[in-house]
């Protein structure tokens, strides 16, 4: 049992989850994000889901996918034209 105010290893799920979010401009944001969805993340970032595709840990996922923990999220802008 850890002293008051400290967390032990088993309490990892109580730690604020931090996700690495790679933005369309290649910038990286480390975000604290509780259990939420790709859709809510895009909404927080002010991004229209129709203008991007999103991968979680390298795999393409739809907006309804639950994300959090140590997920690596990549938001790729769909370039117009071509």
């Amino acid at each position, binding site marked *: 049992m850890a002293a008051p105010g400290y967390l032990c290893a088993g309490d990892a799920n109580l730690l604020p989850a931090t996700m690495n979010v790679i933005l369309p401009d290649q910038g990286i944001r480390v975000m604290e994000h509780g259990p939420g969805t790709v859709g809510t993340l895009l909404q927080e970032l002010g991004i229209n*889901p129709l203008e991007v595709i999103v991968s*979680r840990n390298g795999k393409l996922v*739809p907006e*309804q*996918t639950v994300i959090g923990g140590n997920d690596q999220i990549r938001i790729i802008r769909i370039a*117009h034209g071509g």
Partner: protein
Amino acid sequence: MGFSAAPGGGPVCACCAEPAVIYQPVQKRHLCGTHIVRDVEARVASTIREAGQIHAGDRIAVGLSGGKDSTALLVILSRLLPSWPGAGLVAITVDEGIAGYRADTIRAAETLTGRLGVEHRIVSFCDLIGDDLDTLLTGREAQACTICGILRKKALTDAARAAGATAIATGHNLDDEAQSVLMNVLRGDLPRLIRNTGTGQSAAFLPRIKPLAAIPEKEIAVYLFVQGLFSVLPECPYTNYALRAGVRTMLAGFENLHPGTMQHLVESKKIIERYCAGTPVMGHLHRCRECGDPCSGDLCQVCRLRHSLGK
């Protein structure tokens, strides 16, 4: 909205138990990688069949910029083509001469045609008019898309004729088509709104077909991504000068809130087209007095542009 969840916390495909990669809001379903590929190809095949866009023995010139839409178009057509005996493909890339943009997409086009074994021809604005687009646009940046559009169409048509093509296929998707409808309405340009170049009803035109016209832009990106064919390529530096950029953002916002908006716009255009068939608004076909190309007035757009550019 309810959906079945995969072990990783994501929804699963409506057709199998695999994790979904996309949600289709109009169809209200999730699809996995395998099924979005099948679905996109089936809808393109259906567009082609319903509109009679390709026939046995055709030689289709595919406008291949190397960007996502034309890449998807060439991949899909190369897979579907055995359905039309004797039909063949030739890919045509127009190099407008845009620094920092076109070189990457031309390389992508060369790699793709090499992989698919499709004949590839590259033509340039320099060949057509003696200068690259960057030079032509000096001091005229706001007209970028108009000037580029006129010259690109001419370059593609000339190259397609030279290649012996019977039709030109372009990668316009549902988003492009809906944007064009709204732009023509905003400009009050009814003749352009109802112009249908897909039939080639006049022998003067090579038919222009748009097999991807029913596919949303995002589905095309996903179609390529799940097959390892999606590349992050630069966007044209002149995009922000275009009316289309504003219309694109606005329409994407509406589509996100009201799925089906884009499809409804395109369907509205088809209804107006039917009402206007045979009426004076369609205009008459003339021949350009300088180059002889078909046009709606005395001079074609290319010759008018040559004059204004002093070419």
